[in-house]
Every structure is written in structure tokens, then in C-alpha cells.
């Protein structure tokens, strides 16, 4: 007996931000992330019959998206790998200019561990955002993540400024306690 139902009409509202953030933290290109998310939704739509309902819709879509990201890297590496010329300009045989500073580890450079932690943090934030009521999540995203100013949000959502701050306060309180449990 399947536990989860599939409803593609709700995919954009429910999962697009989560999938987009998941993708952009792995490919670092906004347009490409949008394309991959779109491809994921289309692929999900095509293979809807294969959804058994054992996992949640989001988990199922993420598994498709992961495939898409792997395919993307496989594709660029096969093209790039053939054409790439590796220049090792700091070899010991070179007598002039061995760019010593290039050999020193950059303390501000992001390590794989840092980016992995960042990806996990992003996932944790989106998991907590998923627990907020829809309106709170929308306002919080617009204000905190997109950085849209108060007036624009009020006009767009047809709410007063004081209403917005009440929503923000409730969202921040819920987010903080959720992050406290899952991250801090």
C-alpha cells in the first residue's frame, strides 16, 4: 500500500526552492540550476508511473535531480577532458618564475569539507522552512533569502508593514527553534 501520493500540480510551490538550492550549491550556476530543476520535473512527470509511494515525493524528485547533476558533470568532463591542456608551470625544471605564492595553501579557499557543510546547512534551512506555514515561509524567503524590501513585499502580498513584521517574528521564532534542534 503506497504511503505517499504524487501531485505534479503542487511541485513548483512545494519543492522548486528546495531543489533549486540543492542544485545551485552543487553546480554554482543559476541558469544551469534552473534548467536542471526543470528537467527534473519533466523527467518526474514522465516516470510518474514508477513512483511507488514508498518514499516522499521530495525524496523521489531529489533522486532524479541527483542523476541529472551527475549526468551534467559526466557530460562536461567528457568534452572538457578531451580538450584540456594541463600546464604545470611551477615544476622544478622551470628556472624562471615558479610562482611560489601559487604553491602556498590559501587559508580562505573553500575546502571540500566546507562546501559539504554548507550544502548540509542549506538543506537543514530548507527542511525547517518546509515546516513553516505557507504564508510565513513565503514572507520569510522573500525578506531573508531574496532580500526584497518591506514595501515591495507588502505591495505584492497585500499586507501591512506591521502584519509583515508579525509574520517575520513568528517565522524567525519557529526557524530558530527548528535550527536549534537540527543544527546549532
Amino acid at each position: 500500500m503506497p504511503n505517499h501520493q504524487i501531485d505534479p500540480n503542487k511541485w513548483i510551490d512545494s519543492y522548486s526552492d528546495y531543489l533549486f538550492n540543492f542544485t545551485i550549491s552543487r553546480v554554482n550556476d543559476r541558469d544551469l540550476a534552473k534548467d536542471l530543476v526543470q528537467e527534473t520535473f519533466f523527467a518526474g512527470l514522465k516516470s510518474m508511473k514508477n513512483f511507488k509511494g514508498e518514499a516522499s515525493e521530495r525524496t523521489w524528485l531529489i533522486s532524479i535531480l541527483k542523476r541529472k547533476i551527475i549526468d551534467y558533470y559526466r557530460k562536461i568532463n567528457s568534452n572538457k577532458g578531451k580538450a584540456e591542456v594541463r600546464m604545470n608551470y611551477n615544476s622544478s625544471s622551470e628556472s624562471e618564475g615558479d610562482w611560489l605564492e601559487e604553491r602556498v595553501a590559501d587559508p580562505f579557499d573553500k575546502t571540500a569539507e566546507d562546501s559539504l557543510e554548507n550544502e548540509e546547512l542549506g538543506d537543514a534551512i530548507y527542511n525547517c522552512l518546509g515546516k513553516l506555514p505557507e504564508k510565513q515561509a513565503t514572507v520569510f524567503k522573500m525578506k531573508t533569502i531574496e532580500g526584497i524590501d518591506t514595501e515591495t513585499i507588502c505591495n505584492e502580498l497585500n499586507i501591512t508593514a506591521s502584519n509583515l513584521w508579525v509574520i517575520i517574528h513568528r517565522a524567525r521564532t519557529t526557524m530558530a527553534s527548528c535550527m536549534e534542534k537540527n543544527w546549532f
Partner: protein
Amino acid sequence: MCTKMKINKACEKANHVCDKSQYKEATLLEKLKLMLHLVFCRACRNYSSTNKKLTTTIKDAKVDCMHKNEKEALKESLEKAIQEQQHQP
């Protein structure tokens, strides 16, 4: 107004300014009043520190989301695809 109600009102206002200052929308006077309130109120001090922590965490995570117009375009194309799929035999 009883003292308890006055305290609640002051804390409510302090929390509101604290929220506003996370988005750099609090005025200097509001911030000064908040700092003064935080000296005496432990509950608001806790709220303020958690609030700041949340802001820093979200900033560090560099989370991103789709803009409204991008979502609408995606929604439109997905709806089209859903309809096409429904019409297929």
C-alpha cells in the same frame, strides 16, 4: 496598566526592533533603546542572541531560491507538459 503588562509591551517592542535590526531597518534611536532594554531583560537577551545566530547561519549558508517570475515561467511550462501528458492516449 499593571507592571506585568508594561513589561510585556516593552519586550514585544524590543523583539520587534531586534527583528528589524536583523534586516538593518532599525533606526539608531531604536537600537539604543533596545540595548538599554537588553541590559535588564534576560528573556529578550536570549531572543536577541538566537535571532542574531539565525541571521549569521542563513548568511553563511548562502541559500538561494527561485525568483517569482522564474517560478511562474516554470509553472507554466510544467502545466503545459501535464496537459500534454493527459491528452496522450
